[in-house]
Structure formats: C-alpha cells, structure tokens
C-alpha cells in the first residue's frame, strides 16, 4: 500500500489551479489557431486573433486568461492501493484558496446561494472522486466560468429517441446560449446513466482533449455530426457570425435504464480551462 499525505495533494491543487488559469490548454489553442485560418469574415478573424494574443499574454505575464476564474471543480481518480493521510476535503479547499490568493485570481464564490456573501477565498470547490486500479492519484482541476455554465442544460429523452433527437437538443442549447457564453464554445455531452450522472459525464467530457474522439465508433460519429451541425448555425466568434461556433464536441457515455436516455450538455467558452497531474 502506497501512502500519500494531503499536504502533497494541497500543493498539487494549487499548482494546477494556477496553471489552468494562466495557460490555455494546448488543444484549445490549437483549435483556435485552426479556426483563425479557416474564418473568412474579417470580424470573426479579428476576434480569434485577439483571443490567441490574450492567451499568449496571459501565459507570459501570469495573468488570468479570463477574469472569471471560475468555481473550481476537482476530479480525483484514486488508486485502490493508495492510502491518503489527513483531511482530504480541507486540503482541497486550502489548495484552491492558496492558488487564488497567490495568483491574484478572482474570488467568485458566495457562501450561500440566497444570502450571497463572498467567501473571499474562492473555496469551497466541487469534488468528484473515482476509485481506479493501482496506487496513483490523478488530480484534475477545472475552473469554469459561469457565463457558459449558466447555459448548460439537461434533458431526459425517451429511450426510443434517435441520434437526430440528441442533435436537435444540443442545437437548441447552443442557440439559446447564443452570444452570451463566449463562442466559439467547447461542448461536453454526457449521454446515459441517470439525471445526475449524465451531468457529471458532460463535465468530464470537457476535460478530455478536443483532439481525441470517443472510443466507440457510433459515438465518434455522433461527435462529428454534432460538430458539423453546431457550426452550421453560423453563430461564430462572440456571436457575430462566422464558421466557428464550436471548437470541439466531446461525448462521454454510460449504460442507462430501459425507460430513459438522459442527455446533458455542459457549455464551455473559448477559454475552456483544466490542468491535470498524476502523483
């Protein structure tokens, strides 16, 4: 049994929060550069150019890519041959707090959804834990802004629904997000499981590189069809028209019940951020 102390996890969370907020993901940056080449409308091109320049400046000066440095979600994959010593929840919260203080990141978390007093630490974070084989720990940090989070949606489709019904729902979500969610977007689509699990799958889909397709052939095909369908909406960068409405569409899926077909869409902006490390 390998042992690890929570202080190591706390430091890793801090490091990853900073990295995610200052350095735009390589796959997202690559997609933005490809989109810049592809766009023909000058306004769309100019917006993409500014987005790329912003990513370069943020990395160089260690400034937040976007002022909405998000509510942090942390995904832990814990090996079943690993023992963690200490208060894990406390370590995660302190790890976030350290990063947001040290990195001059915005504290965007309120202590109560109705009373709404800022916690001034950006803690707490949202935590998801999976148990995996082995003795390693994979930590993935995803600070997500709420301009796009507010546009995410879930629908419990009928079990007899087809791929085209799924596409229609995703198009509805993207159209309703319109210009507000900072397109070009990245879409995470969770299909199957339960109401809650589909939403989690959609979030996990955002963590995967947008260069990587789903392992199953029919979901891979659906990812491609969705990308094409959404881009044919011509919403474009910042909703001002263009070929690039989404940079990538990732699907994660799970078995489900005979009576249902849950579909969740996590809408993410062009500053889709995450960072991961195995310890």
């Amino acid at each position, binding site marked *: 049994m390998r042992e690890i102390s929570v202080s190591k996890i706390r430091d890793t969370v801090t490091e990853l929060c900073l990295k995610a907020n200052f350095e735009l993901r390589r796959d997202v940056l690559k997609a933005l550069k490809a989109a810049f080449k592809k766009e023909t409308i000058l306004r769309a091109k100019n*917006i993409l150019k*500014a*987005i790329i*320049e*912003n990513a370069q*400046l*943020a990395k160089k*000066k*260690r*400034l*937040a*890519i*976007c*002022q*909405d*440095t998000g509510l942090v979600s942390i995904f832990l994959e814990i090996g079943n041959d690993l023992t963690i010593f200490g208060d894990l929840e406390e370590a995660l919260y302190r790890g976030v707090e350290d990063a947001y203080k040290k990195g*001059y*990141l*915005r*504290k*965007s978390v309120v202590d109560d959804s109705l009373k*709404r007093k*800022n916690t*001034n630490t950006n803690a707490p974070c949202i935590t998801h834990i999976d148990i995996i084989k082995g003795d390693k720990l994979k930590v993935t940090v995803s600070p997500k802004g709420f*301009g796009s989070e*507010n546009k995410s949606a879930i629908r419990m489709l009928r079990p007899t629904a087809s791929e085209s019904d799924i596409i229609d729902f995703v198009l*509805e979500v993207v*159209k*309703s997000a*319109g*210009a*507000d*969610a*900072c397109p070009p977007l990245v879409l995470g689509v969770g299909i199957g499981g339960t109401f809650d699990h589909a939403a989690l799958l959609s979030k996990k889909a955002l963590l995967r590189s947008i260069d990587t397709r789903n392992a199953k052939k029919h979901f891979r095909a659906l990812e491609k069809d969705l990308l094409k369908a959404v881009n044919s*909406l*011509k*919403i*474009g960068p*910042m*909703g*001002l*028209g263009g070929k690039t409405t989404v940079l990538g569409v990732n699907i994660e899926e799970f078995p489900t019940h005979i009576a249902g077909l849950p579909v969740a869409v996590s809408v993410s*902006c*062009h*500053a889709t951020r995450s960072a991961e490390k195995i310890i």
Partner: protein
Amino acid sequence: MINITTPLTEDIRENLKAGDEVLLTGTILTARDAAHKRLCDSLKKGKSLPLNLKNAVIYYCGPTPARPGRTIGSCGPTTSSRMDSFTPALISLGLGGMIGKGGRSDEVKSAIKRHKCVYFLATGGIGALLSTKVKSAKVILYNDLGPEAIYKLEVKDFPLLVGIDSKGRDLYDKAGWKKE
C-alpha cells in the same frame, strides 16, 4: 475606427452606428449583478443614487485583483443580459452607455432608443489583453462586494463594437443567425 471620449454626451451617442468599431478613452464605472441590485434597491426606496450616471458609461465587469506593479488584473466583460431587468431604470437617469457581452432584452432595446443610449460590445474572454488598456483603477463604492464593487476605471483606447445604437439598431440582428 472611431475615437470617442467620456462623458458620452448625446451628440457623441447619436453619431454611432451598430457595427462601428470604437476606441474609448476616459472614465468608466464597473458594475455587475450585486451592484445593480443595490443601485436599483436604492431607487425603489426613493433614494438618490450615490453616483452620477448622467452621460456615464457602465462596464459589466468584475476584474481579478491587480498583481503588484499592475493597474488591474484581467478585466473582460460579463454577460449583459443578467443586468437587463435593472438597466431601463438606470438608462432613464441619463446613463450614456453600457459595455458588456451578448444580447439584450426588448425592454432594454426600447429604453436605449427612447433615451438615445448606446450599448457597446467588448470581446469576452480576453481580460488579460483588455487590462493593458486600463490606466488606473479605484474602488469608489460597495467595497464589501469584493470583485463586484464599483470601480472607477480610466481607460485609453479601449476596443469596442457598437452593439445597439441610439436608434435601437442591434448588431446581432445582422449576424446571420436568430436566437430562439
């Protein structure tokens, strides 16, 4: 490219058309959800506002804190539509312009037209780049709101697009897609 300076008087506003690219220089005030709620709560109670909005420009923005040696942190726009229910009341007080991202409600559009106001679009998600256009930043109201406090910003050549002009013309109507 059109250069404009604050205060955003009616003659400046009337000369701007939806789609115009603008560089704004002068003073702007940040305010987002919580600050809008407080301002409008004051108005509902019949109190006068603690700041003068006549020909002023409100920027829907909650910046990140400034690193030592910098004026401000990242400071891009937030989604404007969340302010829609508060906006007509502020426009009726003579507000000159607003800066944000995304579309506005019909109520806001008609208030803009009625009072010859202007709604500007800033590009979302480029807050680091926009921070280089801010020459000074100071909290002037609601300090307890943290990132949602009202900051007075002095900006130079802040890059904007006219989203809705004083005649109520909306740039998104010409973007080639329709929101459902």
